[in-house]
């Protein structure tokens, strides 16, 4: 079967190729950055297994690597814009290949869609073709491999050229690619060090108890603001719901729990639209689209997020107390 680890190894191989290209072009800092990250991806499986068996040394080595990656990101890595040469050549090629150029690009979403719909038919008993832990990610990776093959066939490119292109775009992404993983790691550290409980303590001590509307606004604002800080509504939800939602809205004012849960989470999502801490949604696209303003995507989302937040508060007030 196709294990999720194979997907990670494939990512590792792409990072390794990017590191190799950087070293070959005498750019040691990004070269070291991608090589270290590639090793974390190749060894991740073994690190998790060893940690489960009680041997923490490999995990500690990765911990050192994480700090090294952050220092490399801050010192030697500048986001290199992907070069824009060959405009005339691209134009000629676009006129020759026409709409066939869309096929490999569409193969990624459509291939993923087809494979995800096939998942139930690709398993029998204990055997599942796609790793049962992350079947949609495996489907996505397989679609990417198929699309890369189609793109190579269409443009008559060699696998080496494909790796070169991937390396070029990885260098354009640079540390922005790593940020989602670092933020998730920070979330785990915050959880392990009791940051969430400390915040819940402060929040429940500081929140109003009297008026129903004040409780609703406190809960909704708390979800949005804590999501802005953590970058993730899932991290804010247990903290704010334990601090305000359960004792005040549900306990004291008899709100409907399912409504409080659903709309509380959605208030958090409005916060996600507003924060650089939600790196994979708000910072990675800035790097991918090569925008100059690091907050360009957030700026484009502010009006939608604010209006929707108000709508959520009104819905919460209306639906939770029917």
């Amino acid at each position: 079967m196709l294990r999720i680890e194979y997907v990670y190894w494939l990512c590792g191989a792409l990072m390794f190729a990017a590191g190799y290209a950087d070293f070959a072009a005498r750019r040691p800092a990004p070269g070291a950055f991608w090589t270290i990250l590639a090793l974390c991806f190749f060894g991740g499986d073994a690190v998790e297994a060893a940690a489960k068996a009680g041997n923490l040394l490999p995990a500690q080595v990765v911990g050192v690597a994480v700090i090294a990656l952050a220092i490399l990101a801050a010192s030697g890595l500048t986001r290199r814009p992907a070069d824009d040469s060959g405009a005339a050549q691209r134009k000629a090629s676009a006129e020759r290949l026409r709409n066939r150029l869309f096929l490999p690009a569409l193969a990624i979403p459509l291939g993923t869609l087809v494979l995800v719909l096939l998942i139930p038919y690709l398993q029998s008993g204990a055997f599942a073709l796609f790793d049962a832990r992350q079947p949609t990610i495996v489907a996505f990776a397989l679609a990417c491999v198929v699309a890369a093959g189609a793109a190579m066939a269409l443009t008559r490119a060699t696998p080496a050229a494909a790796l070169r292109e991937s390396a070029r775009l990885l260098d354009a992404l640079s540390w922005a690619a790593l940020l989602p993983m670092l933020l998730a790691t920070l979330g785990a550290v915050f959880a392990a060090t009791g940051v969430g409980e400390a915040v819940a303590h402060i929040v429940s001590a500081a929140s109003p108890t009297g008026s129903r509307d004040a409780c609703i606004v406190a809960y909704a604002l708390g979800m949005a603001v804590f999501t802005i800080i953590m970058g993730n509504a899932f991290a804010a939800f247990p903290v704010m719901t334990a601090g305000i939602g359960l004792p005040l809205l549900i306990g004291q004012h008899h709100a409907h729990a399912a409504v409080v849960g659903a709309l509380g989470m959605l208030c958090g999502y409005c916060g996600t639209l507003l924060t650089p801490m939600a790196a994979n949604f708000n910072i990675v696209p800035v790097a991918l689209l090569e925008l100059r303003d690091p907050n360009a995507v957030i700026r484009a989302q502010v009006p939608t997020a604010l209006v929707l937040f108000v709508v959520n508060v009104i819905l919460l007030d209306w639906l939770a107390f029917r």
Partner: protein
Amino acid sequence: MNYWPLLGIAIVVAGFAWRLNPALVVVAAGVASGLLAGLGIPELLALLGRAFVSNRVLLVLILPLATIGLLERAGLRERAHAWIAGLRQFTFARLLIAYLGPRQILSSFGLNTIAGHAQTVRPLLAPMAEAAAEKIDPDLDDAERERVKALAAATDNVGLFFGEDIFIAFGGVLLIQAFFNQHGIELDPRSIAVWALPTAFAAFVIHAIRIALFQRRLVRNAATKAAHAQD
């Protein structure tokens, strides 16, 4: 209760406010929070390392890059541009709204990996949006071009966020259910997901109106520029 680890949050806020490198800020906040909670260096390193490798899934977004790079070198963006320019009835607003709706619906069926910033926005949606905006205003300046691309990325985010919460097997819905279950309130995932529907609808309407307003501003700017050119 030990409140010192909260300084980690302060480091994050200050670091982003001072525009330090975000990767360094985030790791520094984690280290500070761990040390202030009384963790020893070996435990802290192991915690960082385990959390890091267990979140590898967040980097699979790099997988489409080889395909995108090859296609872009072969003129994908130029072709997307030419294709949109040739379709008269496909305006800027229609393009983005036609992306937003299906993105929401597909996410609400749990199909959220099929689109995204690497897979669909950079190679397809952003160049098409740019081309559609150029149909309105042929002299689009860099700042406007940047706003067009950012709005394309924002449209993908809005579509994803306010669709996935309707899917009953989505992590967020299950998290809500598990949380209430722990506190003695039994809920069916369907009864949670159904309350995300009004917001999903509102998100579509609000964002679609904003897209339409953005288009109107483009039209107005183009008219002003044309008037100036005539003077």
